[in-house]
């Protein structure tokens, strides 16, 4: 589904990614781990199309199409979803109105009619229940005054609503207490299918107890230096990252 070939990227002439190669197939869960400053968040931002970073070399291929020149919204319309590490607060736009706009803009871009209001309401009800979200929450301004946990839950709620092909979860576990972690992980697991894929970016092994990866990659100094199965995460938890430095 997603193939990243020799990806190099920089911000203000500082090279952050130095030749990433990654292959994610439908139905798989990949975890990308690594120390702070390794380039994990940069990688997720670049896949989603953040224009702050400059891709200097390489390709990002989604279902056979190079998407590296596409605008963020065009990638979103093709099924790329990024759960933000720091979701942005947007005062004056309610959670409901935001997600309605997002869904209908995607449908418009894919040549579909707007979603009928009753269908939308039903979907909102269903998905907010999945994430154990309070009704009142939905009419509040997007992320404004939300706790860290509420923000992350809201991200996964949006993911559930948009039903993406490729979901990238950037440090979704940070700022979550154990109950919220369980709810969020449960949400992600329910959304997993043989047709979509999940890339989990995390610092710690904790989230991977709940969302079990098929593959674990270690990102250090802008490169994937080691890949393995779920056991690799446990090993990293135990030994840290220093032993991987050559």
């Amino acid at each position: 589904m997603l193939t990243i070939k020799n990806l190099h990227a920089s911000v203000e002439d500082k090279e952050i990614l130095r030749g990433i190669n990654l292959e994610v197939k439908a139905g798989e869960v990949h975890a990308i781990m690594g120390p702070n400053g390794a380039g994990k968040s940069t990688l997720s931002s670049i896949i989603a199309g953040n224009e702050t970073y400059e891709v200097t070399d390489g390709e990002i291929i989604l279902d056979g199409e190079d998407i590296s020149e596409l605008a963020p919204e065009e990638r979103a319309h093709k099924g790329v979803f990024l759960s933000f590490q720091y979701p942005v607060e947007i005062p004056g736009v309610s959670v409901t109105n935001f997600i309605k706009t997002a869904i209908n803009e995607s449908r418009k871009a894919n040549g579909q009619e707007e979603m009928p209001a009753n269908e939308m309401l039903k979907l909102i009800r269903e998905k907010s229940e999945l994430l154990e979200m309070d009704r009142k929450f939905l009419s509040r301004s997007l992320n404004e005054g939300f706790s860290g946990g509420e923000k992350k839950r809201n991200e996964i709620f949006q993911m559930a609503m948009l039903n993406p092909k490729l979901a990238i979860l950037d440090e979704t576990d940070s700022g979550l207490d154990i109950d919220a972690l369980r709810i969020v992980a449960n949400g992600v697991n329910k959304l997993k299918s043989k047709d979509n894929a999940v890339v989990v970016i995390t610092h710690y092994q904790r989230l991977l107890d709940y969302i079990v990866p098929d593959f674990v990659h270690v990102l250090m100094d802008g490169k994937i230096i080691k890949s393995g199965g779920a056991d690799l995460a446990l090993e990293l938890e135990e030994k840290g990252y220093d032993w991987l430095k050559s």
Partner: protein
Amino acid sequence: MELKEKLISSFMAFEEKVDVGTELHDLRTSALKNFETKGFPTKKEEAWKYTSLNAVLKNDFSLFPKKENNIEVSDVKKYFLNDLDTYKVIFIDGVFSTFLSSTTHDGLDVCLMSSALTKPKYKMIIDTYFNQVASKEESLTSLNTAFAYEGAYINIPKSKVVEKPIEIIYFSTGKEDALMVQPRNLVIVGENAHVQIVERHQSLNENPVLTNSVTEIFAQKRAIVDYYKVQNDEQTANLIDNTYISQKQESRVSVHTFSFGGNLTRNNLNFYHHGERIDSTLKGITIIGDKQHVDHYTLVNHEQPNCESHQNYKTILDGQSTGVFNGKIYVEKEAQKTDAFQQNNNILLSDKATINAKPQLEIFADDVKCSHGCTIGQLDENAMFYMQQRGIPKKEAKALLMYAFTSEVTSSIKIPELKAKIAKIIATKLKVNMGFDL
């Protein structure tokens, strides 16, 4: 002939046309004298430092339209609050339109200034209120006073809650090459009475217009007045709006000013407190581009203790447009426990747009809460990326973000139909097809 000379020399002819008593004649004559002495304001004056009338005054404005102009309802329907039963006081090129209006004398007066100024039964009220809160010093207000004749006259008796909003609309047909109009409105709201008013100035084509409007509002004890100004005119229209509000104790007056159109717009908005526990709200949204210019010049004069004022102005500037916000809060020595708040946020979308923001607080009491905040920035790029990531295209994301930026002002619009209309104007202004249904 320059506009100033033209105005002065036409005064006698004007006064011959209108039938008024000696008091009004004296009042007009001294107002004209003040204008004659001071002339049009220039950038040399502190209050007009950022707004120049020079280019506007070069037009050869007609002062009195030559004939009665008619317009069809279908041509102007879109400027009304659709699907809403309202009182309407409508003027075409400064002349009252019976056909488009819906006035009343049934339990309240919603009618014409010209009747109020000339009919004996209104004399006492005119003597009590007319030109009582409007400035006698400010030259443009004096100019309006000198030629005051037509406009809306609204008198709401004690304890009357007016169910229907009142719409005051001034249309310019553009049948004159260039037209100057000087509407004069008087609004008196009795004790415990409540009224909602929407005022609009609208050109129907692109011939230049200069409107120098004066509105006096008197809110008696515990009266509630919600006043909305919709400024979405053609880019050849110029508006100088002078609004003076006198508030008695425990009254609540709010003025929302929506400035989207016009070539040059100057809003002089003045609140004077005469009593305790008064609440004043001044809010505004300005969204302009090209070479448009909007200047908000506000004054809240806190004279008595325990009063509040809330100001919140949001500005979005694109192209080579210029915005000005000058907010003056004056707290007199007696006005202890004043709570005065002022907020002015500005977004510049282009390198060539300019904002001049100036909070001006003069406080002579020692136990008050006065705060002001002013920000100037660009659209938040993180927020843009976030919205785009969720599939909202750049243009729409930008529009949604800008609408959200104005939400502190739109959220307090108490007429839902007006709120929808403003949302629609904003969408059109931002060139998106979105509902913003919040």
